[in-house]
């Protein structure tokens, strides 16, 4: 199977690989997938208390090239966004941007799940109940 140029680019030079302090109050961590399914994504966001915007995002992914590219792209998109805007990132946006073939759509779903899990973790730590956008995303 041939990969798109964008997948190859993210795979070869992944953006924002790394680890944020998961115990910090302003860091949200999402860990999704399972080793036996062949992909695990850990996506972390750091939120600026003053602005409420995502100031940093990091990832590490165990998985195929599309899974790595999906999470790398997600961290790029997350930086500078508000949590509400971050909640609106849809897996199909990732599919389109990376030109993922149908068999790789699950990678984008996993990236969306990871974003939502990281936001949920941050909100839980800070005693925030789910914002309006969450309801929209679920619906």
């Amino acid at each position, binding site marked *: 199977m041939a990969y798109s140029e964008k997948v190859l680019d993210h795979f070869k030079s992944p953006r924002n690989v790394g680890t944020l302090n998961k115990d910090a109050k302003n860091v949200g961590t999402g860990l999704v997938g399972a080793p036996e399914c062949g992909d695990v994504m*850990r996506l972390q966001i750091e939120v600026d208390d003053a602005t409420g915007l995502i100031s940093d995002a990091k990832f590490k992914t*165990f998985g195929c*090239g599309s899974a*790595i590219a999906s999470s790398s792209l997600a961290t790029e998109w997350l930086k500078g966004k508000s949590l509400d805007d971050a909640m609106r990132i849809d897996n199909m946006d990732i599919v389109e941007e990376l030109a993922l073939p149908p068999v790789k759509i699950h990678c984008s779903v996993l990236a969306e799940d990871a974003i939502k899990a990281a936001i949920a973790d941050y909100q839980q730590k800070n005693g925030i109940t789910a914002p309006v956008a969450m309801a929209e995303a679920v619906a």
Partner: protein
Amino acid sequence: MNQRRLIYLDNNATTPCDPRVVDAMIPYFYEKHGNAASRSHQFGWEAEDAVDYAREQIAKLLDVEDKEVIFTSGATESNNLALKGVFEMYAKKGNHIITAETEHKAILDTCGHLEKAGAEVTYLKVKEDGLIDLAELEAAIKPSTILVSLMWANNETGVIQPMREIAMICEKHGVLFHSDATQAVGKIPTHPREVGIHLMSFTAHKMYGPKGVGALYVSRKNPRVKVTAQIDGGGHERGMRSGTLNVPGIVGFGKAAEIAREEMQQDAARLSQLRDHLQTELTKMEETKVNGNEQSRMPHVTNISFKHVEGEGLMMTFNQNIAVSSGSACTSASLEPSYVLVGMGLGDDLAHSSIRFSLGRFTTKEEVDQAIELVRNGVNHMRDLSPIWEMYQEGVDLTKIEWSAH
């Protein structure tokens, strides 16, 4: 040496043709283009002679009679003919077939087809090292058993089943024994009569011959085995397989068998050294595991799991330079890990982390050394990206985590 040449370490998928094979084939596309069944002119006679000669070359490699070699389109067809042909021919004797979970799909799917037609099939499990349990095999045989079908060497791990011991059990119980020897023929000695195998499938393109031609060995005496034809027509191949013979392919197959017979020993000795070198160097990395019995294994194959790294992603780090296969079937429509490795009791996570390296006649030491470096760099790159590698290094017990399967 040209550094950009793609290093081919996927010889279990298919081998390149030996140039000597192609040279032997070429006249049979042009001046000697006859149909081997044409009895009335020179073209036909030449083609028939060429097929007879190739049949002899192959019979010599197997140490059998030339009439016992039936040409087919490949090992998949041979496996279909053996299983379906025996099931139909021996229907009065019984309907029970014994095989193993780690067989090739050409066996498993054919068995599935026969189950719908009334066969009862026992799928033996394998031990952690990939070998079947002989006591389990014997215990599975019953009065209605007509056939045991077990592969000589596994395509994914190279593990060699104890052919002689299996044959003795079959002989004791009067059951026919078929072996899918696709990965073994031409690479290690495979003498079905001496071992006690009654039917044996194999193909040219795994032994430096062309694609599209294979054969089924069918024992003609002690016992005389018959199979019901699956392709009807002009009655070629003693009525067992109709269809105009693929003369150039068969000529190439014969030449490949002749070369294999002469060079097998030196090829195997050289390749096992190279394979051992590759395996030793790669397993020096932390958290690696060789899959399958290392004592009973093909000389040119090793299957290694690189823990906490996903196989398809890993391959992507070096697939501009090295061609190998992964036990992670993430590339195909199914996202299932290798059923062969899972059947050996490997967890799905380790199966997803495995790579099969299969060397061949044209693999060089320089290529293996380059591959070692590229794979090591790839594993390190992927581990730097892997959250579970990080957790492992922090001492997190990965089995205690509640993963969200999706």
